[in-house]
């Protein structure tokens, strides 16, 4: 079980939990504003961009190659950027906070 905190760009805080699936799916199931997931989670659209809270980045890990390349195009890219459809939910990421970029 992992509990994830989303903070949207209009400062709404949403806490959600799940055992499996991707963080993007969790965000959509919980109506998190700014996570559109247009491509359905195949790392093709970059509409699921989040900044991982600095202290949590090690838990979540760095993006893979394709994801990192996709992120480069993003306006608000920073060193804690991830496309959250590429983050799998597991105990390892329990308690992390994600700032929704859009």
């Amino acid at each position, binding site marked *: 079980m992992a509990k994830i905190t989303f903070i949207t760009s209009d400062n709404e805080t949403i806490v959600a939990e799940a055992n499996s*699936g991707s963080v993007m799916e969790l965000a959509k199931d919980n109506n998190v504003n700014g996570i559109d997931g*247009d491509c359905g989670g195949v790392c093709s659209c970059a509409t699921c961009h989040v900044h991982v809270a600095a202290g949590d980045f090690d838990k979540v890990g760095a993006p893979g190659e394709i994801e990192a390349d996709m992120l480069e195009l993003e306006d608000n890219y920073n060193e804690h950027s991830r496309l959250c459809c590429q983050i799998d939910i597991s105990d390892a990421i329990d308690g992390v906070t994600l700032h929704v970029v859009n």
Partner: protein
Amino acid sequence: MIGASHAGVNFAFALRKEGWEGRIVLFDKDPVRPYHRPPLSKAYLTSDDPIEKHSLKSAESYEKEQIELCLGVGIISINRDTKTITLDTGEIQVYDQLVLATGARPLMPPIPGMDTAHQLYPLRTAHDVQQIKAALGDGKGKRAVIIGGGYIGLEIAASMKKLGAEVTVLEREARVLARVTAPEMSAFFQQLHAEQGVNVLTNKNVVSIATEGADNIVHCADGSQYPADLIVVGVGIRVNLELAKDAGLEIENGIKVNAQTQTSDTAIYAIGDCSFHHNPLYNRWVRLESVQNAVDQAKVAAAVIAGKDASYNSLPWFWSDQFDVKLQMVGLSEGYDELLIREEESERKFSAWYFRGDQLLAVDAVNNAKAYVIGTKFITEGKQVDKGKLIDTDVPLKPADLIKN
């Protein structure tokens, strides 16, 4: 809102986001809560996940945003004088603004024997896939014939092969993907499928299907025959424009709209696969079949209805996943006069760059998101690419290195 798929659903949520407080009612004849279509030929076909895993929005989202979702309801006519639409239940719904997002349906060519064939399906809806999955069972040893070698046909072929079926693709043209990409890309995909054991055959014009019991034989014009337990037809689509046509709206290769996505009646909008629109970046009228176009037009329509100044000027993009190959495309390549292929060191990783003179029109990137992203940047910013550096593998794929000075 008529049609609740990528265009319709995104429109409804975008309209709420724009601050619209009136009623929003979405109608769709498909009874299933709106879902992503792209996975239908990919992840949804190959896994046992329920369709809800691919929902566009959760059930609670519609409630939260007070978006009324009327599923399993077809619209049969539009009356522009009374500003009403008629449902197939006979009921009448009034509107202030009407949005058509009726999309498209699979084209079923008039091939003799199609009606009586055993286990023959198109692939556009969740229901189609459920039927195909049931027919396929565990896949092993089932003979599947796919009529049509476009993106959807090839994706279905890759998915079915993964499931263990014996797959044959019959394409009428001399190459697969003939309508949508360059010969070089067609050759790559043809070889990819051959290596994975899919029987991809071109110049195969299907003329009839003979069926006895559960056995189908697909006959081609050249006399060849292919036995099939299951047939999937993927030869293209027909736009759902009958409602618009009957209502007297202007029609060309789709429902004609202006930059604000309004039809010839400004109280009626048309977005997504059904819209024939002008793309200012390419100065061309187009009809696109892509999630990008559906979503971007939905946003424009929502902004316009909410009283904002908005017009459509998106750069088209698209993707396709087959086996371990991720294809990402950006731009419109039509009208190109030069194609440059940039190879990378790894296998099955390259990109195709389409030019007209010095202008970069489009990029097809295979397992190469970097090329896709750089292509997007260059096209949007109208920057020129140094062609010599582009095809020189020793020059890293970085914007700064590729700009023509």
